[in-house]
């Protein structure tokens, strides 16, 4: 298992992404899926940076990576010590409504659900943990 912890700040999404990309490349993930995973990670980490630690409180975010499916996929854990929040409880946006008539919020986690294989949430030991799985071998 590989892991990286940084301050929960938007400027730190980029180093997290680089760390992840290196791991995925080493393990043979095709470029198209690397970019697809990058989008999901941008959505997840930006949510942590913007909402996990309210009132200007400083906090951390951790990403852990392990291979699944005999090396043909990845399981990613995203942890933070902020307020308990289950993003999967948010109702999916009604994407059939015209853009003017619906809120823009909630699209990020919806993109994650639609482009990744599995997404789980749990709150344990004072931490939010979102687990995301994506395989590139069918």
């Amino acid at each position, binding site marked *: 298992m590989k892991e990286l912890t940084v301050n929960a700040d938007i400027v730190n999404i*980029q180093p997290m992404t680089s760390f992840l990309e290196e791991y995925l490349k080493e393990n043979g993930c095709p470029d198209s899926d690397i970019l697809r995973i990058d989008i999901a990670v941008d959505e997840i980490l930006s949510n942590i940076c913007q909402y996990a630690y309210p009132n200007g409180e400083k906090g951390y975010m951790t990403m852990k990576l392990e291979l699944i499916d005999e090396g043909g996929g990845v399981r990613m854990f995203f942890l933070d010590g902020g307020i308990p929040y289950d993003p999967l409880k948010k109702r999916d946006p009604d994407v059939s409504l015209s853009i003017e008539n619906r809120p*823009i919020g909630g699209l990020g986690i919806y993109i994650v659900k639609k482009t990744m294989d599995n997404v789980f949430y749990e709150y344990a030991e004072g931490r939010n943990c979102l687990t995301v799985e994506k395989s590139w071998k069918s």
Partner: protein
Amino acid sequence: MDIQKNLDGTKLTIKLIGRLDTQTAPNLEKEFADGLKNVTELIFDLSSLEYISSAGLRVLLMAQNEMDEKGSMKIRGAGELVMEVFDITGFSDVLDIE
């Protein structure tokens, strides 16, 4: 992400190169702050855009709302992954995509 602008009369073409995400979307938003004043035709060239996340969608929507009032906006050259995100989120029904 690099932003290349080409103004031809009242027609503005904006080419986005790289990734339109949480970190880069504010740079594009800044371009609209006073840059769209006399523009009646706005074209986004996305042929060199690697991907877009919801932060980028938000900025495209802002531009669309502004152009609805005074002209037109078109999306050109969107690649497979960018189109995938447009399709998932329903943006492909709202944006004028060539």
